[in-house]
Every structure is written in C-alpha cells, then in structure tokens.
C-alpha cells in the first residue's frame, strides 16, 4: 500500500462563479416547476373555456324559449300535439292491417282475397284519418301565422341588438339610422287566439264523427289482430276524452306568462329533443344524446368486461410464460389501433355483418330481427368493446399481479387449487383494482368519438325501449358524436354553438367523475394490499 499523496489546492474553496451558478440553478428549478404547473393550468383552462363558450347558452336559450312563447309557437304546438296524436293512431291502424296481411299470407291466402276481406277495415281506416282533416289544416294555418310573427320578432330583436351595440360603441348617429320596425304582436296573437274557438268546434265535430265511426267498426278475421284493434279503440277513446283538456290549455295560455330562468337549464338537462336549424323551433335537450352515449357504453362494457377480465386472469395466472410474452404486448398493441380505423372497419365490415346475421335463418326466432339499420348501438358497442378491452386488461392484470405473493402461497399451502386461489384470494384482493380498471375503460368508451360518429347511426332519438333488447339495434347519436359532427358547421356564438360547448361540459364532468371514482378505488386497492 502506498502512502497517502499530498492533496493540492485544485479547486478554489469558493469561487465567485458559484453565486451566478446558484442563480442559474434556481432559474432551472423555477423553469421545471413552471412546466409542472402546465397540467394544472391546462385543466383549469379547459374548464374555463368550456364555461366561457358554453355558459352564454343559458341566456340565449332562455331568449329562444321566451320567443317560443311570445310568438305563440307554444300555443300552436298544443294543437299540433293533438293532431300528431291522431296521426299516430292512424299509423297504428295501418300496422294492424300489416300484421293481419302477414298472418293471412302465411296461410297462403291470395292477395286479392286478402284485400277483399280487409276492404271494410280499409274503409274504416281512411274515414278515421279523414276526421282529422280540418284539424290538420287548422294547424298548418296557425303554423304559418306564428312563424311569420316569430320571424318578425326575431328580426326586430336582431336590429335592437345591433343598435345597442352601436350605441355602446359610441356611434349614436349610425345607431339612430337603424329603423326598428314595430311589430303588432297583439293583433297577430289575437288572430292566433281565434284558433281556440276553431279548435273547439273541430274537436267537437271530430268526437261526434268518431263515435259514429266506432259504431260501424268492422270485425277483423284474425283474433290476435282483433285484440290489437280493441286495444286501439280504447286508446282512441282515451284520446277523445283528452280533447277538452287541450282546449282548456288553449284558453288559459297567455303569451305574456313569464318563463322562469331555470327552464333554460331544465330544458337542456331534461329535454328529450335535440332539434337544430329548424324553421319552427330549436330544442337543445341533451337526453337523447346522453341516452345514446350511455347505451353504447353499456353494450361495449357488457362485451368488454368479461373478455378483459378473463384474459387478465388468464394471462396473469394460467398462461405459460411463452403465451404471456406474446399475449401481453399483443393486447397492448390493440390499444394503439386508431379509433378512426376501427370506425371505418365498422362501416365497411361489422355493420354489414351484423345486418346479414340478423337476416340469417339462424336468428329467425329473435323477435326484433331482421334489423333495418346496419349502423346502430350494437355495431358501435362491439367496436368500442375492442377499444376498452386493452384498458381493462392491462389495469386488471396489473392489479392481479400486485397481489402480494404471500396471499397466493398461503392459499396453495392450505391445499387450494388454482381456481380456488384465483376465485377466493386473488380476485377479491384485487377487486377494487379491477373495478377501477373497468371504470377507466368506461371513461375511455364514453369519451370516444370517431367510432360512434362513424358507426352509431347518428339518429338523434331516444331508442324505443318498448322493443326490449331490440333497442340496442337502433341507431342513436352520442354526445361526442354530435360535437364532432356539428361543431364544424355552426355559427360561432350562436345558441347552437354554445349548446355544443355545454354538451362538452357535461361530457367533461362525467369523465372527471368516472376518473375520480377510479382513482378512489385504486387508492383503496393499494391500501388493502398494503
């Protein structure tokens, strides 16, 4: 061992450049810290901008709803409701006829004979629909009047807004030059109000006609059809009994009644209709979109959860090492498939296949098959399931793998087999982890845009749940889909534009909630396994 060499002064004990170095050091730290804050800032900005663009919706929608009342559109819609109900009864009649024809065709009755047999019924149906003729013409007459008034009021409001804007900008002279035409609302509304009297006479007339028609209602040959027909009759009687109520509504209706501010919110959150760019009245109700999103997500999860969780169990507990090394990266690989490609695949292949399957002989026993739309909830759900499986798989597999070895060993040491160990020890221990995986899968599915935009059918309607499971083969529109589809076409600052931002805000809130729940569960999972 050699002796210790003499140290020499190599480094000055405290160089002056150290001080600048310290400043630089702090600058760097501040720089990194600032970058770390970006995430917070972005989240805040997202919230702010969704609110900023979306919040004006309530004021505009309230004005929209007020105009609906002031121009008497609401009044006309009361009568329109009655007339629509009549139409739907008419449709019911032709449905009954269709069923009758089908049963007779099955019995190989020739077409001429069917027609002959149903002639009295056809006669009845056409007289039934004739009874509403005056009602329909009343509605179209009033519609014209009301929409003319609405247009005038709308133009007036626009001009007023323009003038006040100019005034605020200080251009008094120009503001004065804008002529705002007076709208004679009272006269127009008075002429609308005359509709009430007409309605009363029309409805009395219709009631009388219908009762006499009932007396002459022809019997139907098929007992099942006859039963339907009887049901129809009861419904029609109820309809007739409700006619005076509408008349009462008309009489008490006033164009001046105040619309409370919360109606703007409730008509958005609970509104069952999303109708935009209509000549009559725009409705911004989120329910059809929300229901669409939820239905698609449920279908996707129902498919994806069993697949994802069982493959997670398979890979973490059962598969051989070679399988594991192949399957895990492959499933991760699936998660990288771009959603637009999946959507395209849905249009090009899956939709067609689903419809073909529904037409096949094999599924003849299913009551709601064959389906008419190839793009529907089920098609979109299947594809979304494929997107959710990797998320659910990866996180569940993680949770299963993180269960401490001791748990497993203890179970085996007691003589449990692998299935018992999985079912009684591993899955319960990792349950909150698995549930949070499912929630994150749900978050991914509900926020997914391209697949639903391309494959969910884009019909803005609440599916007809009376069909039972058949409802999942109907087309819907979703919250993500509507934003993607309509955002590019709306006028900036319009009610429609703001409504889309509000939909975005609802979507954002929902996903935040799901995320929050998932994180809560993950924390609990970590705590439970120590």
């Amino acid at each position, binding site marked *: 061992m050699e002796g210790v060499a003499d140290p020499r002064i190599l480094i000055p004990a405290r160089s002056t450049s150290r001080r600048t170095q310290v400043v630089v050091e702090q600058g760097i730290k501040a720089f990194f810290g600032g970058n770390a804050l970006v995430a917070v800032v972005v989240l805040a900005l997202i919230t702010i901008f969704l609110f900023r663009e979306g919040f004006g919706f309530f004021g505009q929608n309230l004005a929209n709803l007020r105009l609906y009342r002031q121009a008497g559109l609401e009044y006309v819609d009361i009568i329109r409701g009655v007339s629509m109900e009549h139409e739907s009864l008419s449709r019911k009649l032709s449905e009954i006829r269709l069923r009758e024809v089908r049963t007779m065709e099955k019995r190989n009755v020739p077409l001429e004979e069917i027609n002959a047999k149903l002639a009295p019924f056809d006669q009845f149906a056409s007289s039934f629909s004739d009874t509403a003729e005056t009602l329909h013409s009343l509605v179209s007459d009033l519609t014209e009047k009301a929409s003319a008034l609405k247009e005038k009021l709308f133009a007036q409001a626009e001009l007023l807004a323009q003038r006040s804007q100019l005034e605020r900008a200080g251009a008094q002279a120009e503001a004065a030059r804008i002529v705002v035409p007076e709208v004679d609302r009272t006269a127009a509304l008075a002429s609308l109000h005359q509709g009430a009297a007409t309605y009363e006479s029309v409805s009395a007339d219709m009631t009388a006609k219908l009762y006499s028609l009932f007396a002459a209602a022809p019997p139907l040959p098929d007992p099942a059809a006859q039963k339907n027909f009887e049901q129809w009759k009861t419904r029609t009687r109820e309809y007739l009994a409700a006619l005076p109520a509408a008349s009462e509504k008309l009489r008490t209706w006033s164009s001046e009644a105040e619309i409370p501010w919360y109606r703007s919110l409730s008509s958005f959150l609970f509104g069952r209709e999303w109708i935009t760019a209509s000549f009559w009245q725009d409705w911004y109700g989120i329910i059809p979109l929300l229901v669409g999103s939820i239905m698609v997500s449920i279908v996707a999860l129902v498919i994806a959860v069993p697949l994802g969780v069982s493959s997670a169990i398979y890979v973490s507990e059962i598969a051989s090492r070679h399988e594991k090394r192949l399957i895990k990266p492959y499933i991760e690989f699936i998660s990288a498939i771009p959603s637009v490609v999946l959507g395209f695949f849905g249009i090009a292949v899956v939709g067609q296949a689903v419809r073909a399957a529904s037409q096949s002989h094999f599924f003849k026993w299913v009551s709601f098959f064959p389906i008419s739309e190839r793009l529907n909830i089920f098609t979109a759900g299947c594809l979304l399931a494929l997107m959710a499986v990797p998320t659910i798989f990866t996180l569940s597999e993680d949770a299963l793998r993180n269960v401490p070895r001791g748990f497993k060993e203890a179970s085996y040491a007691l003589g449990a087999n692998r299935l018992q160990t999985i079912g009684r020890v591993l899955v319960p221990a990792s349950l909150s982890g698995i549930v949070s995986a499912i929630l994150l899968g749900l978050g991914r599915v509900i926020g997914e845009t391209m697949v639903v935009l391309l494959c969910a059918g884009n019909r803005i309607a609440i599916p007809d749940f009376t069909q039972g499971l058949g409802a999942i083969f109907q087309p819907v529109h979703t919250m993500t889909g509507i934003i*993607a589809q309509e955002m590019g076409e709306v006028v900036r600052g319009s009610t429609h534009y703001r409504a889309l931002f509000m939909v975005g805000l609802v979507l954002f809130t929902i996903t935040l909630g799901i995320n929050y729940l998932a994180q809560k569960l993950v924390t609990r999972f970590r705590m439970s396994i120590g």
Partner: protein
Amino acid sequence: MEDRGLRIEEHRGGSPSAILHSPSLRRRGRLLEKTLFWLFRLATYFVLACATYIFLDIGIKGGRTVFTSKAPFINVPFLTEPPQTLYVFDFEGKKQTLSDRQFREWKVTHPGVSVEASSIAYSAGGIWPCIVGTALLVVGSMILALGIGVSSAIYLSEYSRNGRWIRLVRIAILNLAGVPSIVFGLFGFGLFVIFFGWNVSLIAGWFTLGLMVLPAIITASEESLRAVPQGLREGSLALGASKWQTIRKNVLPYAMPGILTSSILGIARVAGETAPIMFTAAYAMKDEMPWQVQRMTDFFFQGVMALPYHIYVVSSKIPQNEYTARVQYGSAFVFLFLVMLIALTSIVLRERSRSRLSW
C-alpha cells in the same frame, strides 16, 4: 377453506377429514377448474382473433391498393399524389374511370364528345398531402409534449416535495389523462383557434395534441426518472455537484432511453387521434402542400390535410362502392401500418429494455 369444510360436515354428517380427502369432490373441482380455464383461454384468444381479423382485412384489401404486382411492387402514385375527384362514365361501351386531371386531358383528346360522368370526390389520386400533414402534426406536437412533459417529470421526481401544490399537480395530471379527446378538440378550438385567433392551423393542432399526450409523457418520464437509483444522486450530491449538475450528468442520461421508449407510444396516440384535430388543424381538402407558403410564418398558421381526418372523410362523406373502396382501404392500410409500426417499435424496445435494465 376450513369454513366450507365445516359446513359440509354439518350437512352430510361425515368427518371433515373424509371430505377433505374425498376423491369425487376433488375430481369435480378439477373438472370445473379445467372448464373455466378453457373459458378464460377462449376469451383471451377471441380478443386476439378479433384484432387479427381487423389487421388481416385491412391488410389484404388495403394491400391491393398499396402494392402492385409489377415492380416496384408499391403503388407509388397512391403514396405521392394528392387526392382527386374520380370520374366514372361509359364511353364506347367501356367503363372509364379517370381522375380529375386525366378526365380533363381526355376531354381535350376527345373534342365534341359529351359524356355523362358521375363524379366521386377523393376517390382518385393518392394521399401524399395527408401523410405529410400527419407527420408535421406528430413531430411538432411531440416536441412540445416532450419538452413540457420531461421538464414536469424532472420537477416532480427531482425537485418537488410532497406538498399541497404537488398533490394538486398530480391530481391534475391524472384527471387530464381521462379527458376525452373531443373535449380537447373543443378546448383547442375555443382557446387557440378563436381566442388566440390562430384559426385552423398547424400550430393550434400542435398545442391541442401536445397538451393531450402530456399526461402520458409526464407519467412515463417520471417512472423512468424514479427508476434511476437514489444512490447515484446521493453519490453525486455528496461530491459537491449541484442539483442540476446531478440531474443532467447522472440522472437524465440513464433515464432517457426509458423516457423515449415510453414516449413512442405517445406518438402512436397523437398520430391516431382524429377528434382533437377535426376543428383545430385539419382540412378535408387543400391544394397546396404545406411548404408552398408565401412567408415563413404562414407555415405555422396554415391548416393541413391529415391522414386520420382523411379516413373519416372518405369513410363517411362518400358512398361505399367499388370505386371508393380503393382509396378507403388504401388510406386505412397506410395509416394503420404507420401507427402500428410506431407502436410496435415502442413495445419491442420496452420489452428489450425491461430484460436488460437492472440496477
């Protein structure tokens, strides 16, 4: 287990040891185990089969567009030409399908002939501008995301102490990761396109996409940074290295491979997203290439065509028929191929580094 044994004993009146050693019970257990394991296996392979079917379907049908039977075996015009409108018409008993340019030439060579041509948008030509646009979007947004993301991760793993602020940052990152891409699109539209007045532009797309992958990059980078053993930091600090010197010389170099590997998966995500760029950066059709601009600054403030948006347009805005399948499947194939190549690189690199890295 014990609990169950006791219950059985009560019902059957046998001794627990008799039940514990009953061969019939064990056999039934084994059968159930086997059946269920097969079900699990089936579910797993079903998922793999579905994905494989998608790859094969798009691979085979798209391959018909992208590859040719003659040398150079790749359909060069499809990859290098802009999209054009396709004209289909009957002429002298033969069906003619011509692209926009060819159709105009054809009209010149056949003067006086009037044909009734049906036109199908986007179905002729290629997808070159879309590939370029996507590449531009990906590169820009990844530079942005890596810059901010790695810096954030350095702060979180090296500088921060657990305080209220850091908890807030972590919560924000977690929640940002769950925000739907369409909401990012709305946000980018509201902030960059309207509020900043950047219009539909590359730079608005960069920021939107960059901020969208940020959480993934931060999480991955922090993980890599934390994997560097504490001893290396302490050793360096104890020698009088400053914090930044320690990070730059003794932490980042060892964390960088991991950071980059994980970020590649972020690239795949950026490239694959459509919703955020729909109203921030993408045009359905644009005649000039991105570099054909008057001034340098115009480069950043121009919208581009992008492959995913192009696929959306050709699969939803034009009908599905024999003439459109070419461009639909071709674009989907090229896009899927590119994204999957990136994802594959990332996964392979990670698997390899996992087996190699050991501190």
